[in-house]
């Protein structure tokens, strides 16, 4: 074995507080180390060339670079050793900058620490094995989960790029949250007017296969080769026959069904089309309210339907789709009004949430766009908006900002004034967050042009007085208690993850944070990737974000998929686990603990049952290796012996 050790000065970053010459000398004494040197900037081109030359000149078969963090330059040096025809896994890095020179002042101790750490890396590299990736084919189809604006954008971009897309939407229509909005900030253009055409594009695109009112049942496989099972939920209406004429909805005698689309601001019929622009524009029965399902008789819709599309016996249907990549764009949910009892949420009808108010403002909403308060249908004169309801409130477990409330409050206040010129809006806020393009100007317009009164402070209590609601709070700027007599109170309720977000994440084997938002691979550099290769994120499922951000992410995820599919075969990461069938005792504990389902049972020719790793699914965490009692399954590049070699090298430094 001929190990080469290269100690980087990193200018003065390392050499300033570590005696790099001494480290190099100590390494030279180690048996098996054939060459040891220092260089000013090892990562520079001449620095890399130095390594390449040394490998050739001294016939090195292993390389240790002691420099900065491997998280920074491991790939750089792997490529360098590869240029010298060494397998890239014959490289190890010792981190003597971030972990030593930058955090310790004592040069002598730093040097000793560096000697130990580099020696440990030398010990490890001596146990390294060459690893080779294998290639596999991929299915060039993509699954997009969620038909909101992010998902639609992703689907359209993928389709434009020539990919077949499977789009799965949980609710009866695509459109998501944006379809419910009245206007969008800061341009005040009509939300459905800009979204509607996109929805139609999706419907009409031949490359997009839409499953509305469907959910993901199961995901099997791995990047390039997923098999997805989709549950098409029963609508009790044969959508092949339904023309969306709406006759059934008109005649339906169950008039008190909960209107999910309108967030329950007013009831709808048990058979309904959620909104006029719905795609697909098809009816569906809500069996929780339908008389036929509740009482066993009615059948009005079935009788009236001109195409005989009603089918009360319809069952959920499972379909399978093969795809090579998955874009998750499942969006977000909102805290319900009942979560704010201190504001009388759920108790006073005229305390509503921002999204409910959005529906009241909307021309296609239950009030036809006329602002009427829910309790008595009167036009409000005083409207109070309260920001940060739930958001940034550790006491309810939501420390984060919901991102867009400040903006929509300003928008809704402006619209209120437009609708009811005599009205006056108040906004209780903590601080105004308007960092987007044209955003700050927009909130100023609300105050300056529309006379919206912004009060910096929290509301402590809301209670009724006659027909009015008294909003009592503090004005922290003036340092006084204020009371506003309001006709309508709008709560900017917190954005939360979907209730089933965790379940879906587990099916997809992606990570999610404490709040149920999906975790990207890297917050800055890999914002739409997940740690499961082949699964990408777009929109608010990753965290609260507004429309432009969601749309950009939709496009970004699509471009990632297109880039991925530009190859005909994929290469697997060889840093995966491997089972030595001669050693495996077949206890299958690894199978049970693998978070990725990457290990299966296999029967050998002699009838013995052993574990086997599906290389392409294995993500390389090594849980199996620390689970396996007999050491039969080893995570390549982090084998027991590689780690133990470091432990023993650590110990021999005494």
């Amino acid at each position, binding site marked *: *074995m*001929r190990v080469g050790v290269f100690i980087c000065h990193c200018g003065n970053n390392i050499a300033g507080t570590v005696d790099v010459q001494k480290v190099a000398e100590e390494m030279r004494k180690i048996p098996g180390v054939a060459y040891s040197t220092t260089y000013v900037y090892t990562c520079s081109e001449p620095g890399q060339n130095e390594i390449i030359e040394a490998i050739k000149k001294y*016939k090195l*078969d292993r390389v240790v670079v002691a420099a900065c963090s491997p998280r920074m330059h491991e790939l750089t040096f792997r490529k360098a050793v590869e240029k010298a025809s060494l397998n890239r896994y014959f490289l190890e890095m010792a981190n003597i900058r971030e972990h030593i020179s930058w955090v310790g002042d004592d040069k002598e101790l730093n040097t000793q620490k560096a000697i130990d750490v580099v020696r440990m890396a030398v010990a490890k590299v001596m146990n390294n094995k060459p690893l080779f990736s294998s290639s596999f084919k991929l299915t060039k189809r993509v699954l997009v989960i969620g038909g909101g604006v992010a998902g639609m954008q992703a689907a359209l971009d993928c389709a434009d790029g020539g990919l077949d897309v499977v789009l799965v939407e949980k609710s009866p229509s695509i459109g998501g949250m944006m379809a419910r909005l009245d206007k969008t900030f800061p341009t005040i253009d009509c939300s459905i007017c800009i979204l509607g055409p996109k929805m139609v594009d999706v419907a009409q695109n031949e490359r997009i296969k839409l499953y509305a009112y469907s959910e993901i049942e199961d995901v099997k496989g791995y990047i390039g080769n997923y098999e997805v099972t989709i549950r098409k939920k029963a609508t009790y209406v044969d959508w092949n026959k339904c023309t969306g004429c709406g006759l059934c909805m008109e005649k339906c005698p169950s008039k008190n069904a909960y209107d999910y689309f309108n967030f329950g601001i007013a009831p709808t019929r048990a058979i309904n089309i959620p909104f006029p622009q719905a795609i697909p524009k098809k009816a569906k029965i809500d069996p929780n309210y339908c008389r036929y399902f509740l009482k066993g008789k009615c059948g009005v819709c079935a009788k009236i339907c001109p195409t005989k599309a009603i089918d009360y016996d319809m069952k959920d249907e499972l379909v399978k789709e093969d795809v090579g990549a998955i874009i998750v764009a499942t969006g977000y949910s909102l805290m319900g009004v009942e979560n704010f009892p201190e504001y009388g949420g759920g108790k006073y009808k005229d305390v509503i949430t921002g999204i409910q108010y959005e529906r009241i403002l909307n021309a296609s909403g239950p009030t036809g766009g006329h602002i009427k308060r829910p309790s008595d249908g009167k036009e409000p004169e005083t409207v109070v908006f309260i920001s940060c309801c739930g958001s940034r409130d550790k006491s309810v477990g939501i420390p984060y900002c919901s991102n867009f409330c400040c903006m929509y409050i300003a928008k809704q206040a402006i619209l209120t004034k437009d609708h009811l010129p005599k009205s006056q809006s108040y906004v209780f806020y903590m601080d105004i967050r308007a960092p987007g393009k044209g955003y700050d100007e927009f909130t100023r317009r609300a105050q300056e042009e529309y006379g919206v009164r912004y009060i910096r402070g929290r509301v402590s209590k809301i209670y009724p007085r006659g027909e009015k609601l008294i909003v009592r709070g503090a004005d922290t700027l003036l340092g006084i208690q204020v009371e506003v007599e309001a006709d309508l109170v709008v709560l900017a309720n917190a954005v939360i993850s979907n209730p089933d977000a965790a379940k879906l994440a587990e099916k997809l084997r992606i990570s999610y944070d404490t709040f149920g938002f999906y975790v990207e691979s890297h917050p800055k550099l890999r914002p739409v990737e997940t740690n499961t290769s082949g699964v990408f994120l777009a929109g608010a499922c990753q965290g609260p974000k507004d429309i432009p951000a969601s749309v950009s992410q939709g496009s970004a995820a699509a471009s990632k998929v297109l880039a991925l599919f530009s190859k005909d075969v994929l290469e697997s990461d060889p840093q995966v686990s491997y089972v030595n069938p001669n050693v495996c005792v077949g206890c299958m504990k690894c199978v049970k603990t693998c978070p990725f389902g990457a290990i299966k049972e296999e029967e050998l020719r002699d009838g013995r049952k052993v574990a086997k790793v599906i290389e392409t699914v294995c993500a390389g965490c090594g849980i199996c290796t620390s689970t396996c009692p007999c050491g039969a399954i080893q995570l390549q590049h982090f084998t027991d012996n590689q780690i133990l070699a470091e432990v023993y090298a650590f110990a021999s430094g005494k």
Partner: protein
Amino acid sequence: MGPKKNPYLPEIVTVVRIIEETPTIKSLQVVFDDPERMKNFKFEPGQVGQLSVFGVGEATFVINSPPTRKEYLQFSVMKVGEVTSAIHELHEGDKLGLRAPLGNWFPYESMKGRNILFIGGGIGLAPLRTLILFMLDNRKDYGRITILYGARTPIDLCYKEDLKDWGSRDDVDLVLTVDNEYPGWDKKVGLVPNVLLEMAPKPDNTVAITCGPPIMIKYTLIALSKLGFKDEDIITTLERRMKCGIGLCGRCNIGSKYVCKDGPVFSLAQLKSLPQEEY
């Protein structure tokens, strides 16, 4: 009597040349660091040595260069375990430990004047090579020399230089075979025991010497018996896990015989007198 020699102490040797025989087999040529020792070192064809990679351990290999050529000692090593992997990591100039010679050897004296049939598979040609070269260096002492050698693919054939030489000699019959058809391969195709049956060599005045993977040996022994070879005329060399190399540590025995000390060379007649074990 002076102090007894410590049989466990290796002598230091230096690797002078490494030959990559196949992707998994390397041959090492080593010389003793003590030039006197190199000069006086004596061994017989078929004897083995224990190579030490210090810190990793020892493993047994046959000295496959013949006693008639003593510029160096050659060992061929297939990469299978810890020690052999470490040996594969060696470079020219590296130091090793060696305990040799150990074990018995081919009874070449009693083979004089007889025809010799060598049957080898894969790295199993190694112990045969030492005897083949030895016999070629004493060619007149022996009758016809036939060598049947097989491997999985042409890439897996060892000692390609030797094979070229033997193939071109008039006084050696060389038959090469590989397990399956292979692009560009114009010699025999088939498993060694089958090719042997096809060749149907005459057992008269012939000694058959075979070495290869256990399964090949098993069927070759059957084939030879079928061809009428007497048990005394069938000679094989065995492999076992060995540690001490001097018949003490107790793991390489077959019945009362220790492969490291009483072997590794056995005639089929001897093997048949031992308890049945998997070879």
